[in-house]
């Protein structure tokens, strides 16, 4: 099957194949990139799944449009996509604030989840609440570093800042999270003694 033949190909190779008119490459890229970006966008948007889907679809559409003119070696596809998603989310958060809506939004109760214990659900939810209270750039940096697993140099490229600035953002973000979540020790099952 054609999909199997492409399994080992890099994201960039698949994008070039798509740019040469190969629709199978787009299927594989979608399955590789969209779930990751959806998780990232959902966290940045305070758990708003529907809006996160809009953002990721828009970002992927931009990727398809870029395919033919994609300059090899200039940026990694995933890095480029994270940057687009991050910028789109920041724009939407800004718009929310200007129209006076709740920044955090309400996380959806019926979202599909791989969480198999209530403790995990509570912790993930508490973390999301705390992330929502962080400044935008700290939230982006902490999410990329500690949830998406990106390295500091990668985050620097995504956010277009220095590695030192990334380190500063993640350190401040983590301190704020630690302080915020400390108040919920008991309800989250930590020993108070």
């Amino acid at each position, binding site marked *: 099957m054609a999909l199997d033949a492409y399994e080992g190909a890099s994201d960039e190779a698949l994008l070039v194949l*798509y*740019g*040469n*008119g190969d*629709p199978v490459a*787009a*299927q594989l*890229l*979608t*399955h590789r990139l*969209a*779930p990751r970006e*959806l*998780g990232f966008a*959902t*966290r940045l948007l305070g758990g708003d*799944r529907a809006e*996160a*889907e809009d953002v*990721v*679809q828009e970002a*992927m*559409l931009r990727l*398809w*449009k870029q*395919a*033919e003119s994609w300059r090899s070696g200039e940026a990694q596809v995933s890095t480029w996509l994270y940057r687009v998603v991050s910028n789109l989310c920041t724009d939407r958060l800004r718009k929310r604030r200007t129209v006076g809506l709740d920044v955090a939004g309400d996380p959806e109760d019926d*979202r*599909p*989840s*791989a*969480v*198999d214990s209530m*403790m*995990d*659900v509570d*912790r*993930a939810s*508490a*973390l*999301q609440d705390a992330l929502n209270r962080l400044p935008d750039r700290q939230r982006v940096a902490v999410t990329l570093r*500690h*949830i998406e697993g990106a390295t500091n140099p990668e985050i620097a490229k995504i956010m277009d800042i220095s590695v030192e600035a990334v380190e500063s953002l993640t350190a401040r973000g*983590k*301190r704020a*999270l*630690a*302080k915020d*979540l*400390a108040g919920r*020790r008991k309800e989250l099952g*930590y020993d*108070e003694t």
Partner: protein
Amino acid sequence: MTKPDKTQLDDDDLELFFEAARRDAPKPSEAFLSAIMADAQTQLPNVQTKPATLQKQGWLGSILSAIGGWPAAAGLATATVAGVWIGFTQPVQLETLSGGLVLAGDYVISDASYVLEDLTPGYLGTSIFAEDEG
């Protein structure tokens, strides 16, 4: 024994939250993935069909592409016209225009070209006058 700082979590505690968040990653629905792939289909570059859109060349087109297209044909035409003009134009005409100086000796009667009167009309006039007197 020191009492743990209750005002902050340490890195290990925080990591539990991050792990929970990683496990809590939203799973994309089939409808969402299908919508993205539908976009990909509409934006699919039409590279493979381009050769089929090429028109069949006629004999003039074949010649043109063989010599390098219209620019090359224009250069060739200019060179041809220049060659014909050079071939048909008699050197004597050039001789006339230059007053017999340029091609003297090769194509015309050189004796006539270098008569002093040709170069100095004033002298010619004087000689005529002198003849009249004589």
